[in-house]
């Protein structure tokens, strides 16, 4: 689907999601309550057919008291890409898993859990994936402190 047409279709399908066409990829910001339903529709609806999760990460916003989960999705059938963003509460970040829709997201979500501490609800195997099992803390949070980290001398 063309970018403008995709933006219009998204705005029509998800009235409570904010569509942002300014970035490199088309982007929708979804409230946490509607997140799971939006992802199911994006995966199953043949008009969107977003069958390939290119990437998934998160962003820590200490000032906004939020951790934003960012999903890059791609459609092999249509050749369009979409970024889905969903805010979680920084004090107790919980987001529904999408690893049952896109199997590749299982390890992405483990990585985000490992580095940001986002608990993905109903994830089948939510363990640390990169760091050691006994690691304390979530290193990509902006307030992470660790005796191993050498600060810059300048």
């Amino acid at each position, binding site marked *: 689907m063309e970018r403008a047409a995709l933006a219009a279709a998204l705005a029509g399908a998800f009235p409570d999601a904010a569509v942002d066409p300014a970035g490199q990829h088309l982007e929708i910001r979804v409230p946490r309550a509607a997140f799971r339903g939006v992802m199911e529709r994006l995966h199953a609806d043949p008009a969107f057919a977003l069958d390939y999760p290119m990437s998934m990460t998160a962003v820590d916003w200490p000032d906004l008291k939020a951790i934003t989960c960012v999903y890059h999705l791609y459609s092999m059938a249509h050749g369009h890409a979409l970024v889905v963003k969903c805010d979680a509460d920084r004090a107790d970040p919980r987001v529904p898993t999408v690893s049952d829709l896109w199997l590749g997201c299982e390890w992405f979500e483990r990585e985000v859990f490992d580095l940001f501490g986002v608990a993905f609800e109903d994830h089948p195997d939510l363990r640390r994936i*990169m760091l*050691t099992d006994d690691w304390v803390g979530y*290193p990509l949070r902006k307030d992470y402190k*660790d005796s*191993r*980290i*050498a*600060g*810059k001398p300048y």
Partner: protein
Amino acid sequence: MALSPVQQAAGVVAAAPGGQFVLLNVEALFNWSRANSLFPLTFGLSCCAIEFMAAGMSRHDMARFGAEVARATPRQADLMIVAGTVTEKMAPIVRTLYDQMPDPKYVISMGACATAGGPFYFDNYSVLKGVDQVVPVDVYVPGCPPRPEALIYGIMKLQQKIMREHPLLGARLAARAAAEAAAAAQPGAAPKAGA
């Protein structure tokens, strides 16, 4: 403590006329054979491994220095070239590989990451600041990554270091200590002979 066969032999030879001269030449033979047949462990952690591979290929040809037989198991290797970034999670595995290598064994720290953490030194939670925190390092090769010439120069430096070793020194000292202890244990023994 019972002496090993090598220690007994070193003691017998050292006590014989001209034995020290013979032992020094035997040690030189040991050193020569060890220095010129280093078997590196096939072991790369990041981009330095590419230069390590290039050093083994025909253009640079590490075989000229006897170090081309990269073994796929630490049991057959006597040189560990730590080629790349050692993370906190990798460190215990590196140590295990080192422990599995038979003596005598040597370590070359290749590149800035293995030597001191390199570009990952500051503001980093996951990279070990130097592989010398987990294994003893013989030669540090600087560079990011070092060129194959630099690695080969590191191997030549290690060869020079090996040629200065005294592999039988421990056996000779143990044999002498055992002989002195036996002499002291005998009643009415003569005063201890000079070294």
